[in-house]
């Protein structure tokens, strides 16, 4: 049983999706329990694998027993879990469980009663994301990227807003181009190395003092793969599809996509960098770290400034994601000799998943409850929805980077990486973006705390004065959100703080996993 954990992680949601698809259309009530059970099985299996990894090192699993060593053309698919993607797996499982709880009532409301279809897509999306994280096969990775992308196109287009549909269409075009670039890169790698297994590719590339690695084809392959992944993770300047897609999607889809898709893509990039090409090749042979870090700096600044220009709450959060992707890519490319930037980037993947989830859940509640797409509409929300706003504030403080939230510590490690590698521009960008985030969020806090306009005397908050009639009615009846949305929010908020307070063990795990990878490069 325990041997099969790696496969179970991916297969549990897949079978869950089948059951939901077959039985769910008869009775909508069956959907949610099936979703929850299959994700819980995945979480259990992820934890199990993670413990195995901690005890006895990375775990390899060959699908259907097709051992890549024995099979004819090295065509077997290997799943490989080390400490880093073990952590990512747990994060994915936890986030998707929280979002599924959040979606209990909302899924039906927002997708015009297509609950089973929504949950099928939801589970397939997790299949794709889990698969991207565990697979050690370069082509299999392409297929799983497409599985997650296809489901996310559909999830985004499911909403009632027609702008969401248009955003989904653009996302399809961008996403497909990105995946195709990745596929092309894998093709070149296969040509040069004759294998698709990431570990084998790495061996071939580094064999004979890295003779094959110096081939220009390998460099082309790397660039193609990188561009493909950058489109997927919305790294500047390839971020154009993201803001509209995430902000006009149904809130449940936004809540699962925003925390996971970009973060897992970043993880995949780090895996390709370290596991396929290797530290020495990427930072020693290629030596583009300065250029990429500068690109990340621009991404951070552009994302923050564009966020500052937004009037809609969710759009603002989407541009912040663009900035956060800059943090992670920049951190991964800092290439300081002790790997602190890489540590920070990996820790930030975990931290940012929960921070983003926290903010997106809170924002979705606010948008739904008070029809407040825009920041000005949030006047006096603190009094009406104290619990929701508490969650929002915790998420926001993490974004700004206030201790003891996890956002502070990831920034701490990233800045350390920046200082050690001498990339002061990255340090400056991180600090500047923290300051911009502070401005952004305190603008919201001020409105939410004290109402829209400065108080004259101590009267009630306005909101009734808004020009749209429907808003007036809504604002009067705004009260705290329902429990099924508050529980995930508060749990996420608690994780945001706990992950920060207990960053020590997490960092220790990450360090122990990446130190050998750095040492290999010397």
């Amino acid at each position, binding site marked *: 049983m325990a041997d099969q954990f790696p496969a179970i992680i991916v297969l549990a949601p897949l079978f869950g999706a089948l059951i939901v698809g077959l039985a769910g259309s008869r009775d909508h009530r069956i959907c949610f329990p099936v979703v929850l059970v299959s994700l819980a099985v995945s979480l259990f299996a992820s934890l199990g694998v993670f413990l195995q990894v901690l005890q006895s090192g990375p775990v390899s699993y060959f699908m259907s027993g097709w051992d890549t060593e024995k099979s004819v053309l090295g065509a077997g698919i290997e799943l490989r879990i080390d400490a880093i993607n073990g952590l990512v797996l747990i994060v994915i499982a936890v986030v998707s469980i929280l979002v599924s709880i959040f979606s209990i009532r909302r899924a039906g409301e927002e997708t015009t009663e297509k609950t089973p279809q929504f949950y099928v897509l939801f589970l397939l999306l997790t299949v794709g994301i889990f698969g991207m994280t565990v697979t050690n096969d370069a082509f299999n990775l392409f297929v799983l990227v497409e599985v997650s992308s296809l489901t996310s196109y559909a999830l985004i287009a499911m909403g009632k807003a027609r702008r969401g549909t248009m955003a989904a269409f653009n996302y399809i075009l961008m996403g497909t181009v990105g995946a195709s670039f990745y596929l092309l890169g894998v093709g070149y790698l296969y040509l040069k190395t004759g294998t698709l297994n990431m570990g084998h590719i790495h061996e071939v590339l580094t064999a004979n003092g890295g003779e094959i690695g110096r081939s220009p084809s390998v460099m082309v392959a790397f660039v193609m793969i990188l561009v493909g992944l950058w489109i997927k993770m919305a790294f500047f300047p390839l971020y154009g599809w993201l803001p509209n897609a995430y902000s006009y999607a149904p809130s449940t889809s936004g809540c699962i996509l925003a925390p996971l898709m970009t973060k897992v893509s970043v993880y995949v990039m780090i895996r390709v960098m370290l596991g396929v090409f290797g530290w020495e090749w990427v930072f020693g042979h290629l030596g583009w770290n300065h250029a990429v870090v500068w690109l990340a700096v621009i991404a951070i600044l552009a994302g923050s400034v564009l966020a500052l220009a937004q009037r809609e709450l969710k759009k603002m959060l989407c541009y912040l994601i663009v900035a956060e992707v800059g943090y992670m890519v920049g951190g991964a490319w800092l290439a300081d000799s002790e790997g602190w930037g890489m540590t920070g980037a990996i820790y930030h993947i975990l931290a940012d998943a929960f921070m983003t989830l926290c903010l997106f859940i809170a924002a979705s509640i606010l948008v739904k409850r008070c029809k407040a797409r825009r920041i000005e509409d949030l006047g006096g929300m603190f009094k009406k929805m104290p619990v929701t706003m508490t969650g929002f504030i915790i998420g926001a403080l993490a974004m700004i980077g206030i201790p003891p939230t996890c956002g502070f510590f990831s920034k701490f490690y990233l800045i350390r990486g920046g200082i050690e590698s001498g990339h002061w521009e990255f340090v400056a960008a991180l600090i500047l973006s923290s*300051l911009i985030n502070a401005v952004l969020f305190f603008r919201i806090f001020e409105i939410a705390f004290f109402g829209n306009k400065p108080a004259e005397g101590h009267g009630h908050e306005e909101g009734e004065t808004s020009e749209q009639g429907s808003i007036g009615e809504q604002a009067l009846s705004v009260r705290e959100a329902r429990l099924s949305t508050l529980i995930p929010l508060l749990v996420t908020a608690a994780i945001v703080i706990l992950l920060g307070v207990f960053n020590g063990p997490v960092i220790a795990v990450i360090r122990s996993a990446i130190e050998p990878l750095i040492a290999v490069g010397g």
Partner: protein
Amino acid sequence: MTDSVNSLLPVWACLASLLAVPAILIFRKEPFLREGATFVAGLVKLGFVIAIYQHVKNGTAVECVLIEGPLPIVLRVDALGMVFALVASSLWILTSLYAIGYMRGLKEHSQTRFFAFFAVSLFATLGVAFAGNLLTLYLFYEILSLSTWPLVTHHQDKEARSGGRTYLAHLLGTSVAFALPALIFTWVKTGSEIEFGKAILESGDLGPWPTVALLLAFCFGFSKAGMMPFHSWLPGAMVAPTPVSALLHAVAVVKVGVFCVIRVVTEVFDTDLLTQAIGALSPSEILAWVAAFTVLVSSLIALTQDNLKRRLAFSTIGQLSYIVLGVALLHDLAWRGSVLHIAAHATGKITLFFCAGAIYVATGKKYISQMRGLGRRMPITFTAFFIGSLGVIGLPPSLGLISKFHLVLGAANAGQIALLVVFLISTILNAAYFLPIVYQAFFPKSDEVDPGEAGAEKFSWHSVKEAPWACVVPLSITALLSFGLFFTSGFLQELVKLFVASH
């Protein structure tokens, strides 16, 4: 190095006020129970602090590692932290009493929120006092900035909001922009060692210019210390209700700033680093001159202010830099003076703020020019004001005399005659901006007692009485404290000697 014992006492001392928050929120409809919770928490907190004091006075540090790892969170109480904790926790109780009188007297709104955040900010203040390493210090520093923001913006009107924005922009902005990078840089330089109690940047770690940059990054980064040019949040924050100004802007917030600066100068940098020569100056002297500049300029600005609270605010800026200046002298006597001045200025300035608030509650007057003759109607308040100002100026009988005496002696022994002159000039300026207020309050020219010519508003002088007892009692106590500490400062001086001896 002093030896240390492990104990959870510091944690409980910090948590005492945080745990009061749920009680405050639960009793939000019952003002008496709500304020009762604040008092109980205050007394419990003081009790814990005194319990820790029993250890610390014997030269034993009390330590508690909350979280281990590459970035540990550690509470560690030594003599310096003890002085600050004693001052903050004892004055909190008095301020709570005062706040009740003030807030009820003015029928302020959202009193529950007010008391809740007040308790949180005290939690953070003690956290700073007990912080055992730079990271913990920074953590509580930021919590303090955030938890005091709702207090500063309490009135919610336009002025309060813009004051609140300036407040946050300065405190959060500088801490993220300067202190955080400085902190991480120190961490990188020392290889993950950020504990206090050993000079963590050894001589030879840094050249002179990087030392200056790092030192100033820390000192400007902890801009709660109010050094120019990052001082303007302090006058801006005076829009807060007076109890907030009193506790936070005379005791907790600003003292946290100077406390951080003292920690950094005495514990992060090795003395050799700070005395490297850069031309004619050394890094510590550069800091000293920045502080001296702040002392003089803020005192001059204070002279021109007519709004009483603003005058007090600029006076505070000056006095804070006084403390920083004393630390930057790098001399035993001056360090003793600096730490003592934390206590001296706290008791003195809180009295002055209490008086300003009491005057406002009783008469609605904010401007000094409107206060002529008020002393005859409010004798207790103005007597207390007089004693408080003696403490800040440093005239006998007050603790301020002892601390300034040490500072001046320290400057003389360190051979910094120019800085000694700064101390003296500033003292004269202090007297110049405080004593006239008292004089005019008690000895107005006869025509000024009659407001008919001033004409602006009808104001019946005969109806003016002292403020409610809940305002008058605390300000009398703090005045007595400021006065009494002159005679009983022995225990403080012992602590200060312990602090100096450990370096």
